[in-house]
């Protein structure tokens, strides 16, 4: 177990293994996203109340899932970096921030353009929307902190602390639709309950969710790999890669 942990923390090992995994995640993401999008836009039936505007769900829900899971990963990686001083964990935490921020923004924008025809308003200050906006600011705070220090370890410490403090926001997002009165509908997909929609609607949603996660894994590896190369550019294995290129 400890040997495995140490190996996982080795930048060279991570670079090699992620290089082998990257094509698989990329192909899986491409296939799932193409199939999911065609299904979502052309094959899934219109909603009996919302008409075709509900098709935004196929972007909105996966983006919101990813926004929260990405944050969780960023906080956990940040904590691992804080506690065990693992460089690779710092790299992963740093790489999560811009990706997560972009998907939080996507969830907010798609929510707004879905809200307009459905609720009659682009934005309402209710608990779900406000806590998602807070999530965006937390991500942007981490991005800012990462570039605010010249010392990498200090940047990693500060942003890990912010990410950990911001963790309280995650259960608030999740339960906001239950604790407070809201316009936002409750969860469409859950691990414990049968979906409230017919299969021809939720199957493509599931495909999109898995596709979004594969895409996240792929671009996270891409970012982490470049970050590792930059940090380790004085070491022998990186110099070899540079010579080969």
């Amino acid at each position, binding site marked *: 177990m400890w040997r495995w942990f140490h190996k996982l923390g080795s930048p060279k090992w991570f670079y090699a293994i992620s290089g082998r995994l990257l094509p698989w995640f990329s192909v899986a993401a491409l296939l799932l996203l193409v199939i999911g*999008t065609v299904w979502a*836009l*052309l*094959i*899934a*039936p*219109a909603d009996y109340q919302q*008409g*075709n*505007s509900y*098709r*935004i769900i196929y*972007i*909105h829900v996966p*983006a919101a899932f990813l926004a929260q899971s990405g944050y969780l990963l960023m906080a956990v990686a940040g904590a691992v970096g804080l506690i065990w001083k693992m460089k690779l964990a710092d790299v992963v935490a740093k790489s999560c921030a*811009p*990706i997560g921020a*972009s*998907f939080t*923004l*996507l969830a907010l*924008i*798609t929510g707004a*353009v*879905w809200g*307009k*025809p459905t609720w009659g308003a682009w934005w309402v200050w209710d608990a779900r929307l406000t806590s998602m906006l807070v999530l965006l600011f937390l991500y942007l705070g981490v991005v800012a902190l990462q570039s605010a220090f010249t010392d990498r370890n200090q940047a990693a410490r500060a942003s890990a602390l912010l990410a950990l403090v911001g963790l309280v926001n995650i259960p608030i997002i999740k339960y906001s639709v239950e604790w407070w009165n809201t316009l936002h509908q409750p969860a469409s997909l859950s691990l414990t309950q049968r979906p409230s929609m017919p299969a021809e609607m939720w199957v493509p949603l599931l495909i999109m969710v898995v596709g979004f996660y594969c*895409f996240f894994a792929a*671009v996270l590896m*891409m*970012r982490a*790999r*470049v970050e590792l*190369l*930059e940090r380790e*550019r004085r070491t022998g294995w990186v*110099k070899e890669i*540079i*010579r080969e*290129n």
Partner: protein
Amino acid sequence: MQFADFSEFIAMGGHGLYVWVAYGVAVLVFAFNLVTPMLKRRRFFVEQARQLRREELHASDS
């Protein structure tokens, strides 16, 4: 297939603007996440290759 023809597909039953803005922003977000690490990676290799040449030139001078 839920739509009779292409113009009906674009119109999305009157919600076309909302649906296409949402999918358009999604395309932008995906492109951002793909392009930024690719550019960073290319910039890294261009810079490091230059550095390496400079070092080797230096080494052969002395």
